[in-house]
């Protein structure tokens, strides 16, 4: 069992009278893929929005364990989550900078490092070597990920011109360019064909094992979920109804009921 990376404790999110997440607790580990599944409207994306600072949870605690240090994610709002806590995410409906090139997309992800290197633009304006080197380094890193996903030839094209599957991949590697500890993927396999989703599986496994990044995955495509998950959390109506390995989940009575309904 690897180290615990994220623990969510008694998380509750209310929108007015609607309880989107009800007293949810689960944990995710380093170098593991934890899937969150559940029927539509179960509150999966809301969990992500809480974790990545887009929503402020009504109650509960989310703790990220990083280098023998525990960080409460509640303390940070939106952009600081990625910057300080190293939690990166992708979106259900792809959010790329579509009229910027693929490479630029990856460089924006390294904004904070480059910003410091450019002396908050002052040194960069003077075109100093220090910034040039740092920029080259950033490009190298982008190229590493591009090579890995076979997007290198498209590097100078607009992100919006890529095929749907490539856009998905780009969004994931863009998130990886922020050097995250925890990567939250919101339905990365949605709309992919079988070949593309098997490529995705490979990519995610690579990230998990080579980069020691914990992955939190929301997915409807069961071939992806069952194929790569180390751990599955099943939500329904904001409540956790099951937690366990992929195999156990498949055989769980509660999960089948949640998806297919209860027999009369």
């Amino acid at each position: 069992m690897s180290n615990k990376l994220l623990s969510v404790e008694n998380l509750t999110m209310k929108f007015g009278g609607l309880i989107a997440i009800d007293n949810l607790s689960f944990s995710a580990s380093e170098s593991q893929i934890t899937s969150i599944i559940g029927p539509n409207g179960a509150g999966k994306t809301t969990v992500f929005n809480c974790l990545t600072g887009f929503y402020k949870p009504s109650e509960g605690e989310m703790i990220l364990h990083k280098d023998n240090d525990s960080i409460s994610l509640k303390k940070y709002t939106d952009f600081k989550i990625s910057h300080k806590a190293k939690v990166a995410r992708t979106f259900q409906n792809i959010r790329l900078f579509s009229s910027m090139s693929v490479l630029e997309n990856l460089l924006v992800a390294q904004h904070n490092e480059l910003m410091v290197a450019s002396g908050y633009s002052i040194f960069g304006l003077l075109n100093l070597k220090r910034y040039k080197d740092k920029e080259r380094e950033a490009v190298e890193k982008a190229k590493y990920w591009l090579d890995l996903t076979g997007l290198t030839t498209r590097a100078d094209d607009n992100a919006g011109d890529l095929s749907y599957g490539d856009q998905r991949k780009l969004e994931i590697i863009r998130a990886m360019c922020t050097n995250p500890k925890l990567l939250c993927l919101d339905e990365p396999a949605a709309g992919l064909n079988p070949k593309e989703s098997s490529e995705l599986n490979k990519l995610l496994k690579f990230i998990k094992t080579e980069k020691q990044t914990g992955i939190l995955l929301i997915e409807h495509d069961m071939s992806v979920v069952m194929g790569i998950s180390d751990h599955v959390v099943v939500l329904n109506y904001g409540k956790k109804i099951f937690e366990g390995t992929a195999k156990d989940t498949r055989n769980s009575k509660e999960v089948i009921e949640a998806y297919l309904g209860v027999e009369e």
Partner: protein
Amino acid sequence: MAIFGPIVGLRTRLQKEGLYIDPQWLMVFFLVIGSALGRFLINLNSSRKTEIAFVKNTKLRISNYFSNKGKHIAITGFLFAVAYPFLPFTDRYLLDVGIMVLTYIMLGWGLNIVVGLAGLLDLGYVAFYAVGAYSFALLSTTFGWSFWICLPLAGIFAAFAGILLGFPVLRLRGDYLAIVTLGFGEIVRIILLNWYDLTGGPDGIGGISRPSFFGLPFTNNLKEGENSFHTFFNLEYSTAHKLIFLYYLILILALVTNFFTLRIRKLPVGRAWEALREDEIACKSLGVNPTNTKLTAFAIGAMFGGFAGAFFATKQTFVSPESFTFIESAIIVAIVVLGGMGSQTGVVLAAIFLIGFTEVFRELEQFRMIAFGLAMVLIMLFKPKGILSNREPTIKLHGDKK
């Protein structure tokens, strides 16, 4: 013909004896011919598919040409701009027009940072122009400081105004942002109009010092032992010197703006601006601070507006709120949008087109506005993204990597 006849063909004329109606057949004739020709062209275009393909091809070729030869065009334009005051046909009037076009180019480039790059539609840009002009005017008249001290200060004041505007509008986007910035522009104008003790209200501020050429003024009435530009260089005194100097001054200021923008586009801030324009939520998820990024865009855009304002003040030697009405903002926004958002060359073309042509066709009076409107419609029809809408990536992995 039936419609044109009564509308254009008859013009009422008031005389002592009563109301007369003058038929203007010539005018009707021209309009009819014009519209028939237009109709014919449209028919020609739609009836032949090959024709359309041809038009598309040429369009593609033109845009390719522009993107490939962009550098050459920029250099030719630059050389022309440098040589402009000494060209044989350039007289005082054309030089004046040149200065005006350059001022608007600079304003366009400044606003391009805010609108083109950061995607924040700012309809009150003239406010920063005004802040720059007034701070220059006040600093130079009350303290008697020279142009070169007042210029950066005017820029700083305008940048400060930019941040002041930036803070409350951080959460706004699109239409709402446009309305608030529009209001801000009006507020600044009204403050200038009403703060009589400081700004002189509608009287404006006069007697602003002219810039000097490294301490050499452009005057003819010298005291004993003083040097001026023409005595120092042993030239015949001419008012054109001053104008040529002003021309080069604004040319340099505009080029600095351009250079700065081109540079900053390739820096993380510049990329963050563009990313913010594309998708703010994605920016946040990648750890880009939207607040700081937007504020820097506002501040830097405003700073260049302030520089242009300072130049305006020193050129006119007089500022009043009348120079900073909404129509100015509208023209600057039109330049940026027409030129193609974020395109530096596009701004130049649009500024020449909008300012230059309206000046050159001044004799045509109200018809130039019709031509102006027509041109706008045509551009929106055929080039809805502006004259030059090609965006070059700021950095390339393959090919012409620098």
